[in-house]
């Protein structure tokens, strides 16, 4: 079987409120990806639409999006793993191509979180976990990550200021990203002073500055077989490894509260499939919905030992000039987090880096890039390895 690669990537600007419909939003990322691939949409022989349905009024968005993008009569379907939906979509596109069923698949990620009112949104957030056993206690996503932050701090001596260093890096690079929703550069004082709005508590020990923002946005990744790439005379970025794992929704099923085993297992699979180790990764995008999430990602991916994440950020090793640049497009903390579109945006950043087309944030000659994309609080773990 031949290799499978990516020949086109695109995303819309990530914004608070998109002034159009879901399908129109999806068009923006799609158009960029198709033009980036230098193909017409007739070349695409299947599409995958990735999203989280509770933010849509539109039922069965795959059909409506495929129609708007001109992707009939090709098959299409909808896939969801919360915030990692488009990484799951990428894995499925890989398998559809690798298996020989298709040779050019568009992975469309889209989320219009502003489609519903903020009261409706709050209500849905209250149902983000097992609705029988956990939601009735009044849980929300920041509080779940806060539980992990608390345990991480207790076990390893991680400090709130260590987490703030992660947000500091994010804002440093977010300022350069024209498609990011949050482009202000922050300083350590704004992130740590008791007088700053960013240190207001959300769910202890996490504070406002530790959390990413909702956004509307879309992304698209065009996946092809080696043969198809040849026939189109395109040089793809190759998908070298895909790993995915799950963990129990109920925290009562977890063994560990200072890391996410589904991420570690997904990384193990992806490294093995790619035949590499963490040391071989030149650049990474990780799922920093909260600062603690990036800290745990360092450790789950093997960039640091468990508990060693704080030294990595203290030493600026995850900055552009460090030993392992992470989220130098601003990450979710600066870009915003339009659930279904997020994974595709991460993949786009890595593909652009591997092509040497990352502009201001281009690292020197990267050969291997990694995408870490999480659904829930480690419920769904996804790691993808890309290479030139």
């Amino acid at each position: 079987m031949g290799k499978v690669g990516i020949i086109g990537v695109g995303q819309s600007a990530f914004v608070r409120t998109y002034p159009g419909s879901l399908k129109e939003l999806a068009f923006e990322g799609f158009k960029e990806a198709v033009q980036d691939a230098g193909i017409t949409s007739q070349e695409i022989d299947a599409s995958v639409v990735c999203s989280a349905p509770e933010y849509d009024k539109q039922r069965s968005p795959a059909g409506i999006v495929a129609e708007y993008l001109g992707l009939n009569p090709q098959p299409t379907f909808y896939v969801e793993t919360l915030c990692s939906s488009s990484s799951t979509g990428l894995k499925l596109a890989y398998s559809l191509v690798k298996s020989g069923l298709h040779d050019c698949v568009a992975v469309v990620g889209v989320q219009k979180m502003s489609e519903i009112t903020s009261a409706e949104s709050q209500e849905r957030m209250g149902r983000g976990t097992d609705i029988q056993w956990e939601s009735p206690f009044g849980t929300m996503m920041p509080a779940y990550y806060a539980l992990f932050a608390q345990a991480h701090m207790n076990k390893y001596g991680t400090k709130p200021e260590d987490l703030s260093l992660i947000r500091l890096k994010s804002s440093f690079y977010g300022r350069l990203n024209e498609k990011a929703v949050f482009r202000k550069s922050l300083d350590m004082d704004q992130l740590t002073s008791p007088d700053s709005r960013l240190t207001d508590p959300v769910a202890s020990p996490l504070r406002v500055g530790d959390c990413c923002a909702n956004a509307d946005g879309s992304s698209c990744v065009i996946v092809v077989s080696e043969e198809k790439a040849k026939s189109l005379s395109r040089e793809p970025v190759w998908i070298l490894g895909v790993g995915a794992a799950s963990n129990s929704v109920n925290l009562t099923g977890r063994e560990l509260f200072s890391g996410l085993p589904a991420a570690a297992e997904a990384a193990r699979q992806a490294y093995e499939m790619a035949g590499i180790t963490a040391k071989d990764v030149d650049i990474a995008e990780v799922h920093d919905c909260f600062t603690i999430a990036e800290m745990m990602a360092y450790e789950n991916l093997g960039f640091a030992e468990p508990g060693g994440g704080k030294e990595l950020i203290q030493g600026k090793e995850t900055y552009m000039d460090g030993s392992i640049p992470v989220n130098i497009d601003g990450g979710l903390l600066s870009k915003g987090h339009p659930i279904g579109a997020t994974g595709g945006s991460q993949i786009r950043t890595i593909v652009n880096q591997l092509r040497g087309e990352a502009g201001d944030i281009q690292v020197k000659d990267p050969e291997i890039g990694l995408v870490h994309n999480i659904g829930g609080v480690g419920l769904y773990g996804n790691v993808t390895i890309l290479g030139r």
Partner: protein
Amino acid sequence: MAKKEIDVRFKKFGTVSFTSTSKVNDFIDYLDQGKVVGTRCSKCGLDFFPPRADCFNCLGSDLEWFDAAADTGELVTFSKMKYGPVGFENDLPYTIAVADFGKYKIFGRMDNDLADEAIKIGMKVKVSANSLDNGNMNYVFKAA
């Protein structure tokens, strides 16, 4: 087809309940009696909390109730929430937590009467049935 009576006891669970019907609805009756019950597979001997109607290990559905309120656990982690979802406004702020009881864990809230300073990872806790202002029930952790 005649409309059957639906068992909606689970609507009584938590500040806001999102589930009405479950095969472990008896949990609510036990909670009313001050018991916080899990289930134990009579074949495998596995303990489940929250209680399950079916054992994922042997696929059997022959499970017995056990009372967790008798056991002592250890606090694994916690978070004090400043914001909550719709319907939880009157409860705020509150602290959610996970406690480890050895053969099973429990997710719940810390007792409101506990001072923030008294809540520490590693502290010994008991789980206790708790009545809510809206007439519903849940369970909370108290210092053991």
